[in-house]
């Protein structure tokens, strides 16, 4: 069972690389925002899986919830910023 969770961990990390490419290369700011959101959703799932591997899910669920909440706050901040400022020209 532990090897299954390890496989899940590695697969999720490999998925994050795809998003990371969008964040670093991404031509427009919106690509970067979406990439950041995708990475953070993967990070939330990854944290819960790490908690399952360590058999301390209760503690890791707290962190991933905090992650998710702050991700919402920062997404709102980004949206407000882009609304006030407009997307920068590339």
């Amino acid at each position, binding site marked *: 069972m532990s090897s299954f969770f390890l496989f899940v961990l590695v697969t999720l990390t490999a998925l994050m690389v795809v998003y*990371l490419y969008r964040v*670093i290369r991404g031509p427009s700011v919106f690509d970067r925002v979406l*990439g950041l959101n995708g990475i953070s959703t993967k990070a939330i799932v990854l*944290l819960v899986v790490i908690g399952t591997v360590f058999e301390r899910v209760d*503690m*890791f669920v707290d*962190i991933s919830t905090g992650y998710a909440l702050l991700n919402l706050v920062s997404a709102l901040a980004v949206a407000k*910023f882009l609304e006030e*400022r407009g997307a920068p020209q590339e």
Partner: protein
Amino acid sequence: MILELPLLVFLVMTAAGAILAKDLISAVFILGTYSFTLALVWALLGAVDVAFVEAVVGAGLATVFFLLTLSTASEKDTQIRRSAIPWTALIGLPIVAILLLYGAADLPAFGDPGSPASTHISPIYLEGSVAQTKTPNVVTAILMDYRSLDTLIETVVIFTAGIACALIYGKGSA
């Protein structure tokens, strides 16, 4: 562990991306991914509380504060005019890196029970904290009970900094 190497590559990639980004807004987003990855590394090492702080402060609050600062800066200030890398940095930084790696080779292995950090005072905390403080989380027990005065002063410092930021950033109509 099999996951630590990809995460390390991730960290280096995001850090380099944040430095090499063309405008500051992109750099802020890439720095957010850096903090996410760093929080995952802390969680993997078992430092759950540090991971929580990294996620809250590094990925959440810092991004918001950076964007708040950028929203008051003018358009031309968010573009980066990059000058050539000075040769002192090209020579000096690798030397510092080699020195740090040389020093790190002397550190005890991760999780070594005979290392100085885990023989000095941490056994007392680990064995006695539940009986003495009735707190299941040993980090909370140390922060809020054994070193509560430290935590109190830290809170005062951060609160003062928050008041100062609010006074500077606010409209000043008090």
